[in-house]
């Protein structure tokens, strides 16, 4: 039996009178990837921020088995006067860890060694996305929360990121990925939680990574967009 990495219970967040996350509960196990699928404004990003404590919750609990998860925000903004290596060395120093594998992670994500010490302002958008992912993954976190991790990446970049995430997942890392791009989620995730209007509407276990699954998820997403409308 797999150990629970993250446990969410009845999480709720309201902005004034608008319920953004409405009593969402789920468990995520080590070595498992869960996808949060939903249209824009479904409450996916807010829920991730609630889980990380960046946004205060109104109700509910968030439990982590080990240390809090790593985080890759949507369109990550990094201090542009620093290099990718500066950031990674800072993270290792803060956590009191060896950063000998940091170069390796940067290479795996397609960042050439010549760029490791260059200032982030000289990076392209895709390279900044890779640097942010390397920053999140360094220190070998037990779990990671990914908010639209493929945004800004070209086809090759997406493939590299997916390969790395699959490797980490096999090594026992729990992944929570939120996106509205179905094919990317199908490739990585074992389960998909469809969110609409702040509610967790349906959980779908993915048996195979096929185009039929993509079509099914898109159909269910469209269905819940209408069905979950607040009365």
């Amino acid at each position, binding site marked *: 039996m797999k150990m629970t990495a993250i446990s969410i219970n009845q999480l709720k967040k309201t902005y004034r009178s608008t319920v953004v996350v409405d009593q969402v509960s789920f468990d995520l196990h080590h070595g498992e990837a869960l996808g949060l699928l939903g249209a824009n404004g479904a409450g996916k990003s807010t829920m991730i*921020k609630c889980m*990380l*404590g*960046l*946004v*205060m919750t109104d109700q509910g609990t968030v439990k982590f088995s080990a*240390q*809090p*998860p*790593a*985080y890759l*925000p949507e369109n*990550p*903004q*990094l*201090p542009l*006067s*620093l290099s990718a290596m*500066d*950031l990674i060395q*800072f*993270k290792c*120093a*803060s*956590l*009191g860890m060896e950063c000998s594998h940091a170069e390796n992670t940067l290479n795996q994500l397609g960042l050439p060694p010549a760029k490791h010490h260059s*200032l982030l302002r000289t990076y392209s958008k895709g390279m900044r996305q890779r640097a*942010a992912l390397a*920053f999140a993954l360094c220190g070998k976190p037990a779990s990671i929360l990914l908010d639209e991790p493929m945004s800004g990446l070209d086809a090759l970049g997406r493939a590299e990121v997916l390969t790395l995430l699959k490797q980490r997942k096999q090594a026992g890392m729990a992944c929570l990925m939120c996106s509205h791009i179905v094919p990317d989620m199908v490739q990585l995730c074992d389960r998909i939680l469809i969110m609409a209007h702040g509610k967790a509407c349906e959980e779908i276990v993915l048996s195979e990574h096929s185009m039929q699954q993509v079509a099914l998820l898109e159909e269910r997403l469209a269905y819940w967009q209408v069905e979950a409308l607040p009365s």
Partner: protein
Amino acid sequence: MIERSFSSLAWLTFKDLSGHRTYRLSLLAVLLIPWFLMVPASLFLIDMGKVLLDMLFTGLHGWLFAYIFFIATPMIARDIELGIANIFLTLPMRRTTYYGARFIGLLGGMIPLFTLYLLSSLLTIFWASHAWQGYIPNTLWLSGMEGMLLICLPYISLMGILFLIASRATGAAEISVFLVAVWILCWSIPPVLEALQHPDVLSKTSPWLVALLETVHQFLPDLTSSQISLRLAHELPLDIGQVLGYCAQHLSYTTLAWLTGAVLFIKRDLS
């Protein structure tokens, strides 16, 4: 763990600052400013020592203002507005650690600028005292050093106010507007209150306005440090009680602003 992430972020803040072109240009500017100030000061030959010191103090006010408004404010605003703070807070790092480390890092950024300005100013004074012997008092360098150290204190208070504003603000525009408002009030209220000492002015001003100005003044730090600058420029000794009171005012103001800001920052939502 907390100490480690605190010192790491404070150091990273300093490293980030030193990578900014504005900061590197400021390092060059503070070296040159005292030498440029020699030109207008030399026009007042009889009062040259007094004018030079006054100008050096004004120059110090100028670049400290520029540092807080054009280097520190954009950095802290960027952290909140663009979500850069989130990548540090999710290391994980306590919010107070982030808030304190950024504060110390940005204060630390003032040290190289101040050291260079002080050294350049002392060299200017020594050079001027040799070039215009008899017009520059021998102890001018000591008054200059004393004054410059004391003038830094109000800007530490202003940094505390910046962090207090940033703890609730949503972005650069909000932070800048409130900080400029505080800065203008700090510089404009003392001369108005001084004018109100005159019975004619006082009789023509409504009592509620006087009370309001006095109340607002109580909540703001003395950024001008005008009395201290004036005495030092005139080579008059400083009253130790006045200096201690001045230091205590700014240090306690900074501590209070920082603590209030930290409490507010802990409770806020970060986008």
